[in-house]
């Protein structure tokens, strides 16, 4: 049997049920207890993952194999280099902007090739 707004009765029932359960779930997940639980769970997960990674690193280093943490450190270093490059690019662009995007200066003439002593004598 169709409900109002051309919505079937089963859908109305599902939507009502969802709201009935949903509102309770929402009040649970916004409660202080839930936030405390989430924070503790996050910290526990981080501690576990650090411990596990440490063990893994030691094992892999025994065989001179890089671990995930080494790769991460490398990526961090690369990120730092990229950030510095980006900052340099920005300041260069700013300088170009401040000088009114003047055309590039003509390339300086290359130094003449060193003359031989015989040429010099001439």
């Amino acid at each position, binding site marked *: 049997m169709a409900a109002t707004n051309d*919505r*079937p009765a089963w*859908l109305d029932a*599902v*939507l009502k049920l*969802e*709201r009935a*359960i*949903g509102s309770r*779930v*929402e009040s649970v*997940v*916004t409660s*202080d207890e839930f*936030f*405390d639980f*989430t*924070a503790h769970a*996050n*910290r526990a997960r*981080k501690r576990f993952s650090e411990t596990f990674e440490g063990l893994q690193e030691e094992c892999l280093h025994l065989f001179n194999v890089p671990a995930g943490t080494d790769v*991460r450190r490398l*990526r*961090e270093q690369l*990120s730092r280099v*990229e*950030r510095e490059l*980006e900052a340099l690019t*920005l300041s260069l*662009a700013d300088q170009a*902007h401040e000088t009114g995007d003047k055309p590039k200066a003509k390339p300086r003439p290359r130094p003449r090739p060193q003359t031989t002593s015989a040429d010099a004598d001439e």
Partner: protein
Amino acid sequence: MSPTSRDRQRSRLDREVERTLLRTRNGIRLVAGSSGPRVGASPKDVVWQRGRAELWRYHGGEVRYAQPILIVFSLVSRSYILDLRPGHSTVEFFVGQGFDVFLLDWGVPDERDAENSLETYVDTYLPRAIDAVRRETGCDEITLAGYCLGGTIATLYASGHDDAPLRNLVLLACPIDFGEMGAMVAGLLDGRVEVEDVIDETGMIPAKTVYGGFFMQAPTVEVARHATLLDRLWSDEYVDGWQAMAQWSRDHVPFPGTAARQIIDLFIRQNMLMSGSVRLGGREIRLAEARCDVLNAFAVKDNVVPMSAVEPNSRLVGDPDRRHELRLGGGHVTFSTGRQAFQHTLPTLSDWIAAHSDELETPKEG
């Protein structure tokens, strides 16, 4: 002559049979994943780029207004919500109304962006993107529109730069009273959840954590959405829209840790924006010093950025004589999707921006 009861039953039966066949076909397509939505499909060019951020210029329409619109998107989700599907796209709508439309998309930040602070966005990226818009269009002033957290960045830029070349500042569902943000910030507000708990080893808040924050606001709503889909599975139009929205609502991006620390400290815990000024980049930014017309547009049923979190923009941002307010029906995505968006929200916004822009004597190609 009205149809007999038997005819009515028969036509209803025919309709149900037809719909069942269509449901089966669309159901198979959905499960097989063979009919992905075409999101972000409006024609555009990248006109400026820095790091992961890109400035897009949309084209295809006749430009009738002198001031281009630059939309600054939020830092937590993907910008294609504003260009969801052909025929259902906010940017396509504004292009069609005669505006030169630009969108500043932050891309997908990664560990290289971990040290991006609010100053990076307010004082580095945004001013340069605005310069790029002016270079591209040759205009003196622009209309700056900020969506959600992008609105906060736009507000800080407009208030913190005396030389901001802005004709209008349009704030779309832009939070200012972070104490009213509800469940999303509740744990952070009272210190039960520390920012370091959610920042990973790359210095970013992972996308799945950002998604979790939104998901936790209404964890069971997915059930209702899927049940509604099942009922409307016969409609290609509905399925397309549903898929596009489902994709967007799960598609979040990592958030830079440094900016997150600032937002949590300055905006959430100290709620500095509500004092009307905030210290950023070594100077005091007073929100009332934005020198342009300011439109605060928000949806009364927004459950992501509640009305109470947005409303104070109307009394804090910009010159009191140049403040405007637009209350709209619908929810957080009323600026981008749904019947309400295209029948009421976007036409109203477009009218306001047009009334606060200069009309070109001779329209030009966009």
